[in-house]
């Protein structure tokens, strides 16, 4: 069995751990650089505030005290994400981060009763130890685990924990209630094409003949069908990317603690991530860098850190992304450890075409942006024609022009001594 643990409204939850007065109020987190809402509490969602709403449109509500908007505090979110991961590591057989707020957890070798008990333990301990509320979905395959997690979140009867078995009435009922678009890796266009075939729910898709699906559609969709039937065939690396993040990571051929090798790896991952970003016409707002030691080598000291660095503005340009990734690496690198894996995640993606231009934009900056865009297009074209990695960026220049507009960033409660929480005695 595999579990998916998903933090509820993660950024808002991080803020509420340290600002309990925000509990139960409509709270939003805004990106510092483009002033759009990037996270919403349930109360804010209920008011109809959409993801990506520009902050100025909400200013009146803020002034009236009806809603609370906070500037993003990626340093805090990165640290809290690492804590959540660490709690899951401690109580399970292994964790694979899927994004900053979603992690797959291995439930190897448990029977049904023990699986449910462990799922409840994870739910309770993450919440108690870190203060972050989560939902847990467990199932025989990743695709089903995603659906179980969704059920745990949306259906109150599960109380945040749903274990779904491959067969049985419960599974059938859940799949019948699940629209195709909510199935992992089934995009809008596919939903339309499948509807023509009379396939409208997750249950319909599960009943389809995998071979016929492969012929008519693709191997990927065939895998989804098999996964819905309970046969695992999607590994994390070939899984559909979530809309909100891009991840590139790889294990080293051997354990290494060489700063140069780590830098090279992170640089490669950052560039590869930026390429993917441009392919799908998105911009990223922040970069997460992580390193992992081998947890199956208890004879070696263990350290699996991660850090999040905000980008100066939402971008798909390899250079600032690379600079941020390097900065993240320098913040987490420690001597004396041999790492097995390194990776880069691009977070909080926004549609490139929908991006608002900053009010501070000057014609010069716009011209610069146009040049940058051409440069990156040329880079991608060369690498596409001549083979991956034909043109690569070196170590980025230290970019001093990162000034952030940041009126309400909350204190970095867990990473700066000067900013820790105050407790009144």
């Amino acid at each position, binding site marked *: 069995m595999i579990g998916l643990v998903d933090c509820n409204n993660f950024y808002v939850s991080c803020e509420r751990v340290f600002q*309990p*007065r925000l*509990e139960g109020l409509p709270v939003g987190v805004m990106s510092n650089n483009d002033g759009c809402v990037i996270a919403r509490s349930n109360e804010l969602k209920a008011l109809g505030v959409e993801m990506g709403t520009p902050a100025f449109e909400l200013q009146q509500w803020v002034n009236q005290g009806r809603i609370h908007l906070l500037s993003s505090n990626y*340093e805090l979110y990165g*640290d809290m994400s*690492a*804590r*959540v991961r*660490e*709690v899951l590591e*401690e109580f399970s057989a292994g964790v694979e981060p899927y994004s900053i707020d979603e992690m797959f957890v291995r439930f190897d070798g448990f029977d049904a009763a023990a699986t449910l008990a462990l799922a409840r333990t994870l739910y309770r*301990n993450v919440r*108690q*130890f*870190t*203060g972050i509320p989560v939902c847990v979905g467990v199932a025989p395959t990743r695709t089903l685990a995603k659906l179980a997690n969704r059920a745990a979140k949306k259906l109150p009867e599960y109380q945040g924990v749903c274990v779904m078995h491959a067969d049985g009435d419960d599974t059938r009922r859940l799949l019948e209630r699940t629209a195709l678009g909510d199935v992992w890796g089934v995009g809008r266009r596919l939903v339309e094409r499948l509807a023509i075939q009379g396939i409208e729910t997750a249950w319909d898709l599960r009943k389809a003949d995998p071979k016929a699906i492969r012929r008519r559609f693709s191997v990927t969709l065939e895998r989804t069908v098999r996964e819905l039937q309970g046969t695992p065939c999607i590994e994390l690396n070939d899984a559909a990317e979530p809309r909100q993040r891009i991840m590139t990571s790889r294990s080293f051929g051997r354990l290494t603690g060489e700063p140069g090798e780590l830098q090279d790896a992170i640089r490669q991952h950052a560039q590869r991530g930026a390429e993917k970003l441009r392919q799908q016409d998105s911009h990223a707002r922040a970069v997460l860098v992580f390193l992992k030691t081998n*947890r199956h080598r*208890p*004879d070696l*000291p*263990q*350290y699996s*850190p991660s*850090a999040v660095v905000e980008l100066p503005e939402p971008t798909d340009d390899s250079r600032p992304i690379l600079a941020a990734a390097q*900065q993240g690496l*320098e*913040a*987490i690198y*420690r001597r*004396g*450890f041999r790492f097995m894996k390194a990776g880069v995640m691009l977070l909080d993606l926004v549609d490139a075409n929908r991006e608002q231009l900053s009010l501070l934009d000057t014609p010069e900056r716009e011209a610069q942006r146009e040049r940058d865009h051409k440069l990156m297009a040329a880079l991608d074209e060369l690498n596409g024609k001549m083979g991956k990695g034909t043109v690569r960026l070196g170590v980025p220049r230290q970019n*001093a022009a*990162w000034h*952030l507009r*940041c009126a309400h*960033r909350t204190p970095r*409660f*867990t*990473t*700066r*001594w000067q900013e*820790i*929480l*105050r*407790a*009144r*005695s």
Partner: protein
Amino acid sequence: MRDPEIRHPHPAPPYRALPHPLGTIRAGISGFPSPAEDYVGRTLDLNERLVKRPAATFFMTVTGDSMVEFGIQDGDTLVVDRSIDARPGHIVVALVDGEVIVKRYEMIGKRPYLCSGNSQYAPIPLANLDCQVWGVVRSVIHEYAV
């Protein structure tokens, strides 16, 4: 305002600056002795001494003088562990009406109270009070001006 240091990789370590041998965390679960115990000549690590569960440990600054009799003074640093279930006798960080306060959790005649370490402050009865334990204080760090 954001201080300029955020723009440079800062030397301030993350909350887990020094190696935490996994063994100390897992020793209690697996029953195996920590492999770290065989390390020879390793630097003593205060984290290891004060931070039992890094993922659940948070630092806070004390304000006010209501806990002086328990050795907690204005400006001290608290090491707070959320993984401990609060029992009577623990010093706790609690949320009362949305405020973060530090008190001692006690039972007085079968009723729960939050007590101060200062005779000027009466115990706060928890009945009819909106109160949640945020975490349990494991230690307090007092630094002298030198």
